[in-house]
Every structure is written in structure tokens, then in C-alpha cells.
């Protein structure tokens, strides 16, 4: 039986040295006893020292993932941790992939220990409570903490990185962690009495704790699962817990039973002021198109308003001779609140400019004023509006046409034409035609620019874009004729 004596509880270097030697000599895990500290009580036991160094030791290879696992497990308070690690180490000779088998009893035991170390470190980061001590050189911060495992060294860098400009000390039964704004030092542990018992800010913290608690949602188990009682004695707020729990039911029932009260005078003053403001707003002059736009902002003529961001109304001069009507706003238009500003809007702008049309002099709008989409995770997929939605929104398009009184309307794509002509149409049959809509108003049909975006073949895309620009050039000619 070989007995290994490690220098201290988290002596990873000592463990590594001994484990390599023993593994190189193929000493079976059952023949090794792992101890921490100087031999004390068991002087009589027949300790066998480590065998001598051999060449095989240098050849020993372990999976890369084993080192961080072992470094964590060594910090666990279980006396069996070194035996477990050594057993896993020896198993690598026949099972080099062992660590990938999470279901293996040894691996899962080690992973569980690693997890409790992570949790203990996390809880130390969470539950250390500093107390401020005024000194001649400024404030010093001191805390007492009792971790479950040997994790002080692992937990310390967090406090350094967070409180670097402060002087602080965290005292535990095993270690004193001291930061002087320059170096992190570890000294011998101490006692709770070594830390000052008072800090006036704790009253404020307790007040906050008591008032952020909602007595109508009492869920004690959920609290203790994350803040186990073993930590309570070092948490200033924990002293309040029993009374908060005891009073919760009465407080919640009291809120429910309480009779409604009359509003305070403050409320009435605000309501009077609001009323005056609304009256003042009603007096302001608005041009007709602006008023319709405002009405449309609250439109609920179809269900599309519920998920879209906002109504995207048309824009352009009210005196425009030409109106472009698209299908519906897309993702970008929905966010910005303006028509044709997304990818299809860019295609549109470029094509219009190429055709020699000044967009700023045209009125640009859509047949449907809310974005219809299907959510896909973090994105939205465009969905074609149906007949009912087009019908419901024609109300607004009709108002726009009446107010702008264009002489030419360019319908971009099937939805626009369906809305304008009040019947489903095939864009392929109508494209390129000037249709007498009614006296003094002509409708021209072409494709929607998003059609070009959807074409996968670059050559096809080029041809179709040229066709689209040609269509717009005919529109430009008609505009010139109208001006003449």
C-alpha cells in the first residue's frame, strides 16, 4: 500500500507529481492511499513511499480536458477526490476516450464534483458581503465567508477584477485573501470575530431586500434552492426572512380584501390638464392628408395591426401627378414607418432614378399598410396579404387617391393591381399596359421590385431588372407627355 502525502488541501502540483509516478509504475488505484498534511494519528500504519522515478513517467499523456477537470476536483472537500482522479487517470491507458463518456460512473462523479466547485465559487461571488471600515488612508472593505469547498484561490480573481481600486480582505476559516490595489495575497485563515460587526449601509440593504419582496408570490423553496440556509448566517438580509415569510399571507390577503379608495387630488389635477391638452390638440390645423394619416395610425380594419409595429402610410407631395402603389411594408419599412426604404425600396429607388423619374415628386404608398409576416425565431418572414386584408386596406388607398388626385398610378405587382382594380389579376397579362382607370386617371402595371430580389439566377435577374427599368422609362415618357 502506497501512501501519498500532499502538502495541503488543494495541492494539485503534488497530486500530479505523485499520480504520474504511480501511473508510470502501474500501481493499481486500490493500492494507493491519499492523505493531506503531515502524518499525525496514523504513525503506526505501514506507509510505503513513492517508488523511484522512471523514464515512462515522462511519456505519460492524458487527454487535454483532464487537467482543468482535475484542477477543479482537487478543490472539492470530499476526501475521495484524489483517489477518484487517480482511478480515472489509470483508466486512460485502456479507455483514452473516457472523458467523453458522461454516463460513466467515475466520469459522472468527477463532473458532479466539478459542478459543485463551480457552484460554490459562484455562490462565493454572490454571497460575500463586505463591510466598510473607515481608516486614515480611506475606506477598507472586509468580509467573512465560509465556502463549502477549498475554493478561495479560484474565487479570488473575480474580486480583484471587480474591486481593483479598493483595499479589501476576505477572511475564511482557511485563508485570508488580501488585495492592496496591487497584488493578491493569501494568508492564514481567521475567525468571524476578526471582521467588524457593523456597517450602516446594511440597514439600507435590508430595507431594499424587504421591499423588493412580493408577499403575494411567496415561494420559499425556490429561494432556498438557490440560497441554501448554510449561507444565511453571513448574509445581513437573511435575518429578515422568517418575519417576511410569516407576514406574507396576511399582507397579500389584506391587499385583496382592501376596499378601493378615492383618487388623490394629484390625480384629478392631471386629468384636468390632460383634458385641456386634448382640446388644444383638437384645435390644431391639419391638412387633409395629414389627418387621414393620423387616423390610419390607429387602424384596426383587419387583424394585421396586432403584430406589426405601425401603420406605414404613403408619403410624397399631396400635389403629386404620379402615385406608386406597392404591396405592403416589409421588415425595415415596418420599423422605420416609411414606405420603400428596405431592400426592395433600394431596388425601386435605383430603377426609378435610372429611368429618369424623381421619386421626391411622386407619392409612394402600399396597397396594404401593415406588415404581414410569420415569425421564425429571431426573424420575420414576409407573408402575402389575403383578399380580406387588401379589401380592408383599400379604404385608405382610396382616400389617398382622392386626396392626391394623381393622373397616373403605377401598380407594382399583383397585390397593388388587385387593390386598384378590385379583382384578382395576373400581372403577366397586364404588365406594360396603360389602362384608363377613370376620367383623367391612368393605371400602369408592372412587377414589384421584390420580385427581382427573389430571382436566384443572376442572368435572369439582370434581364428582369432591365425590363423593369424599361417599364419605368415608359412611365417617365408618360410623365413628360402629361407635363407637356
Amino acid at each position, binding site marked *: 500500500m502506497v501512501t501519498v502525502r500532499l502538502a495541503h488541501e488543494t495541492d494539485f502540483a503534488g497530486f500530479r507529481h505523485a499520480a504520474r509516478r504511480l501511473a508510470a509504475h502501474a500501481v493499481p488505484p486500490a493500492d494507493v492511499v491519499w492523505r493531506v498534511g503531515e502524518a499525525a494519528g496514523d504513525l503506526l500504519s505501514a506507509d510505503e513511499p513513492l517508488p523511484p522515478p522512471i523514464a515512462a513517467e515522462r511519456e505519460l499523456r492524458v487527454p487535454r480536458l483532464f487537467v482543468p477537470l482535475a484542477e477543479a476536483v482537487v478543490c472539492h472537500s470530499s476526501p475521495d477526490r484524489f483517489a477518484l482522479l487517480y482511478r480515472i487517470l489509470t483508466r486512460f491507458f485502456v479507455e483514452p476516450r473516457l472523458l467523453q463518456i458522461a454516463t*460513466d460512473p467515475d466520469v459522472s462523479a468527477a463532473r458532479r464534483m466539478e459542478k459543485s466547485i463551480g457552484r460554490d465559487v459562484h455562490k462565493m461571488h454572490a454571497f460575500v458581503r463586505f463591510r466598510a471600515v473607515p481608516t486614515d488612508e480611506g475606506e477598507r472593505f472586509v468580509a467573512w465567508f465560509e465556502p463549502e469547498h477549498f475554493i478561495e484561490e479560484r474565487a479570488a480573481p473575480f474580486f480583484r477584477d471587480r474591486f481593483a481600486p479598493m483595499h479589501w480582505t476576505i477572511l475564511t476559516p482557511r485563508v485570508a485573501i488580501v488585495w492592496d490595489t496591487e497584488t493578491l495575497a493569501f494568508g492564514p485563515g481567521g475567525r468571524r470575530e476578526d471582521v467588524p460587526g457593523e456597517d450602516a449601509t446594511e440597514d439600507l440593504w435590508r430595507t431594499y431586500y424587504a421591499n423588493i419582496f412580493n408577499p403575494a408570490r411567496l415561494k420559499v423553496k425556490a429561494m432556498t434552492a438557490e440560497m441554501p440556509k448554510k449561507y444565511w448566517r453571513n448574509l445581513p438580509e437573511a435575518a429578515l426572512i422568517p418575519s417576511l415569510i410569516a407576514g406574507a399571507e396576511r399582507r397579500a390577503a389584506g*391587499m385583496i380584501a382592501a376596499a378601493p379608495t378615492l383618487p388623490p387630488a394629484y390625480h384629478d389635477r392631471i386629468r384636468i390638464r390632460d383634458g385641456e391638452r386634448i382640446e388644444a390638440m383638437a384645435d390644431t390645423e391639419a391638412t387633409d392628408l395629414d389627418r387621414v394619416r393620423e387616423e390610419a395610425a390607429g387602424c384596426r380594419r383587419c387583424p394585421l395591426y396586432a403584430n406589426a409595429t*405601425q401603420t406605414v402610410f404613403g408619403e410624397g407631395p399631396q400635389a403629386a401627378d404620379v402615385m406608386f402603389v406597392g404591396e405592403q411594408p416589409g421588415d425595415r419599412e415596418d420599423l422605420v414607418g416609411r414606405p420603400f426604404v428596405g431592400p426592395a425600396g433600394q431596388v425601386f429607388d435605383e430603377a426609378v432614378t435610372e429611368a429618369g423619374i424623381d421619386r421626391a415628386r411622386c407619392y409612394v404608398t402600399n396597397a396594404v399598410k401593415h406588415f404581414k409576416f410569420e*415569425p421564425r425565431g429571431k426573424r420575420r418572414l414576409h407573408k402575402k396579404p389575403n383578399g380580406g386584408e387588401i379589401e380592408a386596406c383599400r379604404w385608405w388607398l382610396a382616400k389617398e387617391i382622392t386626396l392626391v388626385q394623381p393622373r397616373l398610378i403605377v401598380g407594382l405587382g399583383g397585390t397593388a393591381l388587385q387593390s386598384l382594380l378590385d379583382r384578382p389579376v395576373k400581372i403577366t397579362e397586364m404588365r406594360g399596359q396603360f389602362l384608363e382607370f377613370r376620367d383623367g386617371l391612368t393605371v400602369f402595371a408592372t412587377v414589384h421590385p421584390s420580385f427581382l430580389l427573389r430571382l436566384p439566377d443572376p442572368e435572369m435577374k439582370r434581364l428582369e431588372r432591365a425590363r423593369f427599368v424599361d417599364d419605368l422609362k415608359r412611365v417617365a415618357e408618360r410623365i413628360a407627355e402629361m407635363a407637356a
Partner: protein
Amino acid sequence: MAAKTILDKLAVLSDAAKYDASCASSGSEKRKAGKTTGIGSTQGMGICHAYAPDGRCISLLKILLTNFCVFDCAYCVNRSSSNVERARFTPEEVVRLTLDFYKRNYIEGLFLSSGIIRDSDYTMEQLVRVAALLREEHDFRGYIHLKAIPGASDDLIDAAGRYADRLSVNVELPTDESVERFAPEKKPAVIRQAMGALRTRIEANEDLKKAKAKVRRFAPAGQSTQMIVGADDTTDATILERSANLYGSYQLKRVYFSAFSPIPDASSALPLLKPPMMREHRLYQADWLMRFYGFDRKEIVDGAPGGMLDLTVDPKLAWALSTRDRFPVDINRADRETLLRVPGLGVKSVDRLIASRRWTTLRLADLGRIVKSLDAVRPFVVAADWHPGSALDRLDLKAKLAPSPEQLSLF
């Protein structure tokens, strides 16, 4: 009347802030303290520094700057018609409290909201001022979450995003009709426009990253929102549809559900009930299934009578019980998508199971080492030494698997 002390104000303004469910301090960029000035750090993962007896995490100093409010939202403790005690912090007082708490390791940072005073811009300006003092005067590097006030000007939102890690705008209630009914001064479209404006700015961060610009990112921890559940009669099916739409539309880190809870001096327009906490829990579970487990919303709500989720079992188990023909699943052969649909198997367990089975054939005991409860999984899986036989067809399977009713609240 004597002037209120900081302690008095803190009591009023933390009580007024507790109905906002979020206390997250996660998902931001990594920061460290400076050498001589500038305390604070963020490391991506949040820390809960305490838990209240309601089981909720206390990570941030979550307070209102003031609970005076010109709005009269029926569900809200701070509505103008309520007789609750009112208070107002100065920005300097909030800064002081934040730093004092932070230095003692009580908190990860500040979550600051406010009642609407005067107008949107004035209110937003006050919030931004606190954040500006913390970041610029005190070089504070901890976490800051600010409420973005709908309707506030672009400049103020830009400034808020420069100082804050996270911004949030609450949609308040699941439908526009409910918002108008219970929060008459709030405009649902304005709320959504505010979220859309945040999304646009958050997405612009990606361009900054590509350009490697040394500009502080806009709200690096993104945006979140909250809706109150159980104040109106919206069904779970509609709520889940709403949350899916919100996730799709605004790049939200989280949509929080907040069970409508009794408040002091409630409005007669909205009678108080005990908060539907189990419902809130089931909604979160369903939301999770849609976002991380490949479930479609229809699969979850189609089997839900009246559009309401089963409160007795979790939505994954409810789905499995109604589609028993898809089980048992062979843990040694099934693909990842199929395994994720097995009750009792989480994402981590599934990944471990898949890694392990490349090297060994899994038995039931192997599975037992990587799941929380083997009893929950057993009826739905086949292992090398296990087949559930006719257990899956048992009519009392649901009763066997449903958790015994837990005392969730005391009345």
C-alpha cells in the same frame, strides 16, 4: 411633514419597482475594473446576489427614480389614482446608493425605471442623467439596465444606449385592446415603435463590430420586454403567439411574463386575485420549447383546451402524452431532434447522451447519471436493458407523472 430620509425613499421606490419581473444582469460585454478608479466588472453571466422569499433573484438595485406618475394604468401600483405613498430620488442619491451597494458586493448594478413625470422626454432625461453620472463622473463599470420611455426623443435614446447595458420597453399587456382598456394613456403602436427603434440601433452594433470601431456599443446586453399575464382574459395561445411575434420582430433577449399580482390600493377596474404563478411558469416552459427545443407553437397549443395550457403537467409532457405513438424513443439510436422531445431530457442531457453513445451502448443506469429524474424519462425511452412495454399505453400515466400539487402560495 418631515422630509423623507434616504431609507424612507428607498422603501417606497423599491416597493414600487418590484412588479417588473426582470432582474437579469447577463449577456453584456466583458468589462473589468480600472487600476485606480472605476470599480465594476461584467462577465457575461449574471450573478444573483440574494433571493427574496418569493424565489426571485436579486441581482440589481431595482428602483424607480420616482413613483409619481401622470398615467393611470389600472394594473399598476403607481397609477395616478392610487393613494400609495410617493417619493422621488435625486439622481445623486441613486448614484450614491448604487455605489455603496456595489462596493459591498450586494449587487451587479442598477435597474432604473420611473413613473412618467411631465412627459416622455423629461422622464427619459432624468434616467439618462443617473446613468451618465455613474459612467462618467464615477467611471462605474457594473451593469446598468434602463427603461426606455416610449415617445422619448432619438438623442435621449442614443445616450441611454451608450450608458446602459440593457434597455427595455414593456408591452404591458398581451393585446392592444387590453392596453387601451387598462392603460388608457399608453399607445401600443408607440410602444412597438420604441422597440423597433431599439432593434435598429442594436443591429447597428454588428456593423461597428465588423468595422472594429472603438465606439461603445449600443446596449450590448440588448433589449427585453414584459407582459402581464392574468389581468385580462387573453388565452395562453394568444400570449405565446404574441411572444413569438415579439421575438421575431425586435431581437429581444427575453420576453418576461409577469403574473398579475395583488398591489396595495388596487383599482376597482381590475379586481385582485392571487397571482397565477403556475400559469406564468407553464408559459415560460412553452416559450422555452419553442425557442430551444424545436417545437412549433401549434404543437403546444393545439392540444390545449380553450387555448389554455395544462397546469398539472409541463407542456412537453402534455405533448408527449397526446402523441404517445411517437414513443418510446431509443436513446442509442434516435437523432437529436427526437431526443429533445423526450420528457425529462434537457438540452445538456441530450448532448451528453449523444457524446457518450459514440463510445458505449447506453443502459438505463447510464441515463440515470445524466438526467435529473429517471422516473420522468423511463416510460418514454428504450435502452439496451430497458423497454417500457405497455407502460406508455396506461391511462393513468399522466397521473403517475404529474408532480404532486405543490403549495405555491399560502392562501
